[in-house]
């Protein structure tokens, strides 16, 4: 019993200590919320995720050598993606149409239920 308590306290302290650094990712993996990653490389967005629900996380991972963005057509979001960087938003219901503000030939759209 005592051992279990000590272990529990240790785990909580550990988790507490690490929480702030990974707060964003912890939120993303909360029960019921799924993370959908859109790969960005070679001047294009990769395949669009399907089955996205409101509250899920949509993440763009820029593997390209160029800086890009994911900019909503309706102005709902505008995330900058430096080479090698990732950024995410929380999905809201509707069709999220986006483009790269630097490279207008790059477009994508995700349906969120």
């Amino acid at each position, binding site marked *: 019993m005592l051992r279990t308590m000590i272990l529990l306290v240790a785990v909580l302290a550990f988790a507490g200590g690490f929480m702030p650094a990974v707060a964003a990712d912890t939120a993303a993996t909360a029960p019921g919320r799924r993370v959908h990653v859109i790969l960005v490389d070679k*001047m294009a967005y990769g395949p669009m995720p399907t089955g996205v629900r409101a509250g899920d996380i949509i993440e763009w991972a820029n593997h390209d*050598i*160029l800086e890009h963005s994911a900019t909503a057509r309706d102005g709902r979001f505008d995330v900058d993606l430096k080479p090698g960087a990732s950024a995410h938003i929380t999905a809201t219901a509707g069709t999220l149409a986006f483009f790269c503000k*630097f*490279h207008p*030939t790059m477009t994508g759209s995700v349906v969120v239920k």
Partner: protein
Amino acid sequence: MNKSLLALALTLGLGSLAGVHAATPAPAINDAQIAHIAYTAGVIDVTAAKQALQKSHSADVRAFAEEMARDHAAVNDQALALAKKLGVTPADNATSQSLAKGAAAEQKKLAALSGAAYDKAYADNEVAFHKAVLTALDGTLIPSTQNAELKSLLETGSKLFHSHEMHAEHLAQSLK
């Protein structure tokens, strides 16, 4: 500039035709030369962008120029790293020289302009330049490239030039 770019496109076009008719379809141009031409095109656009950042007071023109400088520098860095990895030394050639010569003349012309006249001339030239390089990239350089990694980088470069050309056209129209 437009004239020498046209000459470039024609030269490259004829080069690829000659390749088709040859008994052994050896490319008229090798990877070391292709790398040099692509790199030269990047340097030309970065130089033009730096001039724009010195001369223009338009926020739109400056944002465009910053994008050109950033993107072409990134692709050229990658091209140099790839050349080093493959042990290829980019080889100067007549096409690179004609490109550089045309660009130098254009830069001189642009240097004499200022204000709205400069902005307009820069944007128009960026449209023409990206179009001409695209003709060369898609029509000759990429099909002639032997190394898969260089080909892939040039394909990304082609998509980049398409996007820049579109952006340049929007910019040129907004300055009318």
